Each structure stands twice: as C-alpha cells, then as structure tokens.
C-alpha cells in the first residue's frame, strides 16, 4: 500500500465515521430506555404550606444527621436553601405575585438523567420504577454529576476525609420495594405530594387544572422539561394573585402570558431547560469519542510510519550514492596513479597518490563543514 492509497482510505473512513456520529446525534437515541410504567410524584405547590414535615420524614427514614435548626422552625424556608448530602429535600418560600408559595425541591428523577450521562463510572442508573439511583462503590468523587444536574440537586460529603460520596434523594427506593410510599409523600399533611404512575399523574394534573379554572398555571413542570422528569410540579396561576388588582384596572387587560413562564420563574423553576434531555446535548460529541479512539492512532501512526519509511529509504539511497561516488573517485585516483607509475616511476606515483588523497580529504572536510553532519 502506498501513501496515496492509505490516505484516501483513511480519509473516507473518517468521513463515514463523522457522518455516522452526526446521524446518532440527530436521531436522539436515548441511552436510557423510557419506562412507561414508572412511578412519579406530583407536587402541587398550591397546597404546600411550608410545614417541613417532608424534610423531617426524609431525615428520619434515611437516617440522616439532625440539622442545626429543628424541623419545627419554619422560618428557614425564607432563605433559598439547596439540597445537600445530608438534606435530600428542602422546602423554600417564593413570592408569586406577592403571595407566599412554597415549593419542595428534591431530585426530580429525570427520565433521562444528566447525572448519569455525565458519570463515567456508571454510578447513576435510571430504574424501571422511575427512580434514579446512585451506587457509590465505583464513585471516584469527580462530582461531574453535580455539574451536570440542571436542578443542582446532588450533594457531596465534603466533610468525609475517606471515601466521600455523592448523596441525593433516592425516591425512597428501599421503601418502594417494601410497598411503602416515599417518606415525604407519606408525611405530607396536605397531600401536596401525590404518588402514582407517571402517566396517571399527568392525567390527574390535567384534571386538576381543568376542574379549577384560574387556580393553576396551565402547565405541568416536568412533563417535558429536561426531557421529562418523574417528579412534577403544579404552580398556582399568576393571575390568581392579581385578581384584586385586575378588578381595579380592568381596562388594562393583558393577554395571558404564553407558556406560563412567569409563574414558574417566580417559583424558582427554570423553563429554559428545553424539552431535550440534558444528556442528548452531549451524546453526539461523546459518541464520536470511540471513533476518535479507534481511528486517530491508525491515521496518525500510519502517517508517521510512512514518513519514517520514506526518510529511511531516502537516506539509504543517499548513502549508496555517496558510496558509489567515493568508489568512482577511488577508482579514478587508482587509474591515474597507475598511469603515473607506468610513465614516471613509483616515486612520483606515491607523491601523486598522497597529494590526491589530501586534496580529497580537505574537500570532504569543507563540504562537511558547509552542509553539516547529515545523520
């Protein structure tokens, strides 16, 4: 195989692989299968009163360390708390058009979890029951999952000197297996958390929106956000708080905000995540990695080998040429000396041989100095 053939072959192979990965990215193949019978929880923010019973129950059933402030202190909901390795769920207070609305935060258990797509140790798994579980035995502590999570949920055991782990809501998977409800769902005194099959919850959420016109924002957060999540949120309608104001200046009637972005923004839920699973944004690029791993060594190794071989051949040719010239010169010198010997005797021949050898040597020296040593 010559160089041209090799390069043509490698080039076309590279093109095919590039096209192949592009196709993968476009088709949006899920690396995690969608489980139609998976469970979920619907959080109705209009019902939540911010009592923190869910936090208390979560702490108890998961045997987490006691927090500094007791769970009876509801004032902590005023600060925007985040989930940590030791508080897997938190309830925060938001102002939606001037009215207090509480929202619970925990792992949303995405249908196609970003944490799992980011983890190269395969610690995260989407289970058929809907939960996203974490197995820390292979965790290297890179915390890529924490970077990847669009909801900032996983927490890291920063205080652990040896083998710190990532911790987050488990959907009470051990309890689900025992046929029990998740701790928080069971503890909620307002049924602001409804457990059920995700598909049933969607119907139920729609029914609630339809039966109470004006109460809810006409949007189920998590139905499609970030590719769909097992835990979903219903928000109060932004208009619900505005009623009194509306009555006063009825003239300034505005068309309803499209897609209810306003309500969810005020409730601290981003609508900018889009409907695509986070992982899908990277599958295309990451799908190309095996191609690169497979082809680049061959491509560049081949190119290197070719140039090396070419160099070696060139050098050998050059050496042979130099040798031939040398031999030619020696033969010419010999012939000249033999002629001198015949005509002028051996003494003159010796002098001529020496002079010629010296002249050749000095010339070689100068040419070597001019061109440098060629290795």
């Amino acid at each position, binding site marked *: 195989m010559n160089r041209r053939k090799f390069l043509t072959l490698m080039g076309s192979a590279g093109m095919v692989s590039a096209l192949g990965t592009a196709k993968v990215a476009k088709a949006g193949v899920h690396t995690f299968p969608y489980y139609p019978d998976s469970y979920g929880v619907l959080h109705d923010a209009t*019902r939540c*009163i*911010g*009592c923190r019973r869910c936090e208390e129950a979560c702490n108890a059933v998961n045997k987490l360390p006691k927090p500094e402030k007791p769970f009876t202190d*509801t004032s902590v909901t005023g600060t925007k708390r985040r989930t940590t390795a030791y508080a897997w769920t938190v309830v925060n207070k938001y102002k939606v058009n001037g009215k207090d609305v509480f929202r619970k935060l925990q792992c949303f258990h995405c249908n196609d979890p970003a944490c799992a797509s980011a983890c190269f140790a395969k610690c995260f798994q989407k289970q058929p029951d809907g939960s996203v579980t974490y197995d820390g035995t292979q965790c290297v502590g890179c915390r890529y999952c924490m970077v990847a999570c669009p909801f900032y949920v996983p927490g890291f055991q920063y205080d652990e000197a040896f083998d710190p782990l990532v911790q987050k809501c488990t959907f009470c998977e051990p309890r689900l297996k025992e046929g029990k*409800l998740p701790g928080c769902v069971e503890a*909620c*005194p*307002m*049924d602001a958390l*409804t*457990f*059920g099959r995700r598909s*049933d*919850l969607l119907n*139920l959420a729609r*029914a*609630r929106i*339809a*039966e*109470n*016109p*004006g*109460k809810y924002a006409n949007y189920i957060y998590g139905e499609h956000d970030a590719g769909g999540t097992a835990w979903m949120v219903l928000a109060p309608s932004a208009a619900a708080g505005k*009623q*009194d104001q509306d*009555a006063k200046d*009825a*003239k300034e*009637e*505005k*068309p*309803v905000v499209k897609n209810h972005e306003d309500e969810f923004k005020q409730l601290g839920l981003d609508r900018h995540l889009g409907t695509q699973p986070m992982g899908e944004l990277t599958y295309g690029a990451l799908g190309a990695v095996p191609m690169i791993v497979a082809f680049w060594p061959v491509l560049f190794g081949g190119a290197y080998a070719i140039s090396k071989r070419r160099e070696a051949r060139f050098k050998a040719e050059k050496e042979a040429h130099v040798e031939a010239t040398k031999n030619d010169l020696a033969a010419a010198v010999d012939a000249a000396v033999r002629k001198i010997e015949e005509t002028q005797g051996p003494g003159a021949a010796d002098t001529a041989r020496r002079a010629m050898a010296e002249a050749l040597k000095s010339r070689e020296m100068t040419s070597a100095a001019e061109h440098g040593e060629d290795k």
Partner: protein
Amino acid sequence: MRNGTVLLLLAALALAGVVCLSAPGTAAAKAATLASTDSGAPSAIVMFPVSAKPNPKGTAMTPTVFNHLNHEKAVAKCETCHHTGDPVACSTCHTIEGKAEGNFVTMERAMHATHIHKRGNGTTPTSCVSCHEDVTRKRQECAGCHNIVVPRHDAAWCASCHNVTTSITPEQLQQGIDGTLSLEQRESLAADTVHTPKPTRMLTPMDGPYKVRIDALAEKYLPNNFTHRRHVSSLMEKIRGDKLARAFHNQPETLCSTCHHRSPLSATPPKCGSCHTKDIDHRYPDRPNLKAAYHLQCMGCHKAMNVGRPKNTDCTTCHKARQ
C-alpha cells in the same frame, strides 16, 4: 274617662299593625308590574332558545328568565355582558346553532363557557356561568366555599336559571323561539316568574351539631373540637339577605355541601372518613387521605376568605399537642 285614651291608643296600635301586616300583601297583589330599570331595558327578560330551525313539536330547553334590573345594578358597565358595545339581545348573534355574526359561538356556549381566553383588545366576553363563578370566587363572603368546590352541575343547578313559570304554554314557547311572541305576553311571563315565591327554607345552624369531635386521627395531637355551629352561623350571617346567594342556594342543604361535598344533599351527611381513608387509596390517587382532606378543606376555606389565623403551620391552635 281615663281608660278611653288607653283604648283609643290600643285601637290605633292595632290599626297600624293591620296596615303593616297587609302591606306585603298589597305589594303581591300588584305582581304584574316590576320596578323599571335605569337603562330603559325591560326589568326581566325571558330568554328563549332562539333557533333558525325551531322544533315543530314545540319542545325546547326551558327558557331562562333573566332579571335585567338586578344584573344592571351588579355590574359596572353594560359592556360586561353586551361585549360588542351594542346593547342588543344575546340571541341576535348567539342562536342555538350559532351564526356568522356571533363567530359561530352557540347560545349554549355564550351562556355557559367557563375557560374563556383573555382577549388582547381589552374586552373579554363573559358568559353567565363564568361571571358568576368569578364573582363568587372573589367576594370574600363567597370565596371560602366557591374556591374549594365547584357546584355540581345537575338538574337542580340548571333549574336555578332555566326557571320560566310553569304556566307557559307550548304555543307561547314556540312563538318565543320564532320571535313572534308579543311583548306583553313576554313581559307577563317574566313578571310571573319573578314573583313566583321560592319556598326554600334553608337549614339553620341549630339543625346541625353544636360541636364535632374530630378524633379519627388523633395520635400526635389531641382530638379537635370543631365548632360546627359557630362556623355555619358565621357563614350564614355573612350572606344573609344577599340576593345572589338567595337565588342560587336553592336547596335547604346547599350551604352544607361545601364541606359535605360529593354525597347527595342531606341534613345528615356521611362522615368525612366514609370516603377519605386514613392512608391514600391507591384506586383513587387523587382522593386526599383523611388528614389531608381535613386540612385542605379547613385551610382552603380560611385562605380563600382571608382568615388570618390560625397560621397554616400553627398546628396546636386547632389540636393541642399531646403531653
């Protein structure tokens, strides 16, 4: 004769009493006429199911008698109902089948639609039902109940508006649908309906228990002694004499049916625990468990009526902590 003055006084008193007692009677005798409106529109209107193709048998939905006078007083401007700005009859554009002039919005929709999209141009049309729902959800004295329940849409609910007097003849109905019924006949039908007495005697707070001990769930907290009578009388006091409430709370137990919802109206309704189980019933995932059912009803009503206390998270105000 000193007793004579007393007798005279007594006689005068008796006379005054007779006059007072007979006064409502005289008003009833003049039933045929109604108080006139400021706008000049008839005080009460019979709304017939106007159709391009009247049913030859003369059967149709019972017409509604719309009390224009009462509604005129209740809304700020005519455009609330006459949304085009032109005070014509609704049936000009909204007929049973719908017409191009009315954007093919049928009469049924024009009167009953609830999820009306807000228009950008400032005037969003309202239907009877949507406006009534809106008012009852906003008025503080109504908001408590009307924010947590939606009235059951049964025959009694329909009949509270579709209430034209039973003395209407099939011929009159057919003529009304055609638009050929004479003005006098229409007015007399409307007046007859308005003056038909509604003999509903609402249940009183005294018909219910004084206090209800709620102890089915008492575990962490002591049982709650719910002041049933106080709650009912407070609600009734707030809507006493309210025309809207009187027109639509037309069953003796209507007011009971907010808390005692979903079961048939009764003076002795079933307990909450009959349907709401302690643990959620997996067959009915949206039916709140008993604890949540109590909390949602109590807090839902208190929140809607702006009852400041107790705070939602102040558990021991309603049920004392167990020592």
